[in-house]
């Protein structure tokens, strides 16, 4: 396939030449998605843990809702955040539409449910295993939740990576709230969309290869950390 070959050489040229624009786009992509994942984890993980060990009326419905929110369409999230942050909207006075901050907000909303729902499942499974022993040792629910979070940390790391992957891969939300402004809110996915719309398919594909490579690299790094930690902590 001709365009595939062109795409690979386009990707190679961009990387080998340390294209400054590419570096800026990649840097912004990482900044936005990593920040979003960090905030989403700080919000979603305690929520997931609380639901996992808690017992309260409406718990089952909440779990169903959380699981359903994992499938939030990015473009819808983008639209809703856009309407909120628009000058004509309730939070317009913040003036953060078309900025990286807006993109972080949209992506956080997108992936927090994923982190909450999956960590809820992971911690609840662990709770079933540890429940009696932890209670026997005198751990109250809050302590137990924190102990479980630490004990399931490797599975949780995988969940965080999944969240990052979702954020780095989406284009619908960041396109609408960021505006794909050159040098300001242009990230890998919106750049790919732009080059595609310009008909420069090899370049778009090349950017896509760079993006996939980046995510692969990050996952490989995490796998190494997991392996080392596994050997130390079992």
């Amino acid at each position, binding site marked *: 396939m001709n365009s595939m070959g062109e795409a690979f050489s386009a990707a190679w040229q961009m990387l080998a030449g340390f294209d400054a624009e590419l570096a800026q786009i990649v840097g912004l992509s990482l900044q936005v998605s990593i920040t979003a994942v960090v905030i989403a984890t700080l919000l979603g993980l305690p929520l997931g843990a609380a639901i996992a060990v808690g017992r309260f009326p409406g718990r089952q419905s909440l779990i169903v809702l959380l699981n359903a929110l994992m499938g939030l369409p990015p473009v819808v999230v983008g639209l809703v955040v856009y309407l909120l942050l628009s000058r004509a909207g309730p939070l317009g006075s913040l003036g953060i539409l078309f900025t990286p901050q807006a993109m972080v907000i949209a992506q956080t909303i997108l992936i927090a449910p994923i982190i909450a729902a999956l960590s809820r499942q992971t911690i609840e499974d662990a709770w079933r295993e*540890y429940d*009696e022993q932890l*209670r*026997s*040792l*005198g751990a109250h629910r809050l*302590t137990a939740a924190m102990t479980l979070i*630490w004990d399931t940390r490797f599975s949780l790391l995988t969940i965080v990576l999944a969240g990052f992957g979702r954020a780095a891969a989406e284009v619908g939300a960041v396109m609408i709230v960021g505006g794909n402004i050159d040098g300001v809110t242009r990230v890998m996915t919106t750049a790919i969309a732009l080059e595609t719309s310009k008909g420069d398919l090899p370049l778009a594909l090349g950017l896509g290869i760079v993006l996939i490579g980046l995510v692969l690299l990050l996952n490989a790094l995490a796998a190494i950390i997991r392996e080392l930690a596994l050997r130390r*902590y*079992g």
Partner: protein
Amino acid sequence: MLPLELHELSYAVGDTQIIRGISARIEAGPRTVILGPNGAGKSVLMRLCHGLLKPTAGRIIWHGARNGDVRRHQAMVFQRPVMLRRSALGNVMYGLKLAGKSRSECELRAMDVLEVVGLAQHASRPARVLSGGEQQRLALARAWALGPDVLFLDEPTANLDPSAAQDIESIINAIHASGTKIIMTTHNLGQARRLGDEILFLSNGRLKEHAPIDRFFREPASTEAAAFIKGELPWQ
């Protein structure tokens, strides 16, 4: 804490009655073994006493204990040891930290206990890579480190090979010798004979007999107990 009194204790899940009206008085001192066939309700009875389950009828009365943290003076070892993803030392320290001890106190006490059970050289190894027998010894160490008045053990050697089981039994005796009350379940007659001073025999959720060990084996008072003793093969 002791004596422990059970008054018409019952436990049901849905329509299934698991424990039916058990009344008993368990004194400090003798090693108590709860014996009975599988499904008799031994594990459930232990969990009721330890407070992990709430009875559906009847009462559990610990003497001399404030109604708050009864569990603080008890510990339990389960059939399968549940170890946290940290070192052996870390696991033992976990319970101590929950009890509010300072970090250095925890570490000292934990190392002492690990010495006694023969796991000191594994202190910094991840608990989960230890063998089944070692993990169960670790579970005992973790429970013992808390200095409980009562130690519950639920079929502690059911999953272990004979030599590992022997290690566990000698540690249980050591714990008993240090003044902790032992309450243990087993379905193994030989183990009951070795480790028991008194027997509570359960069948179908009911307490059929409560007797000193010699009398139980010599003259079982109930037909179920007699059948149970006969039914067991001598080398188990």
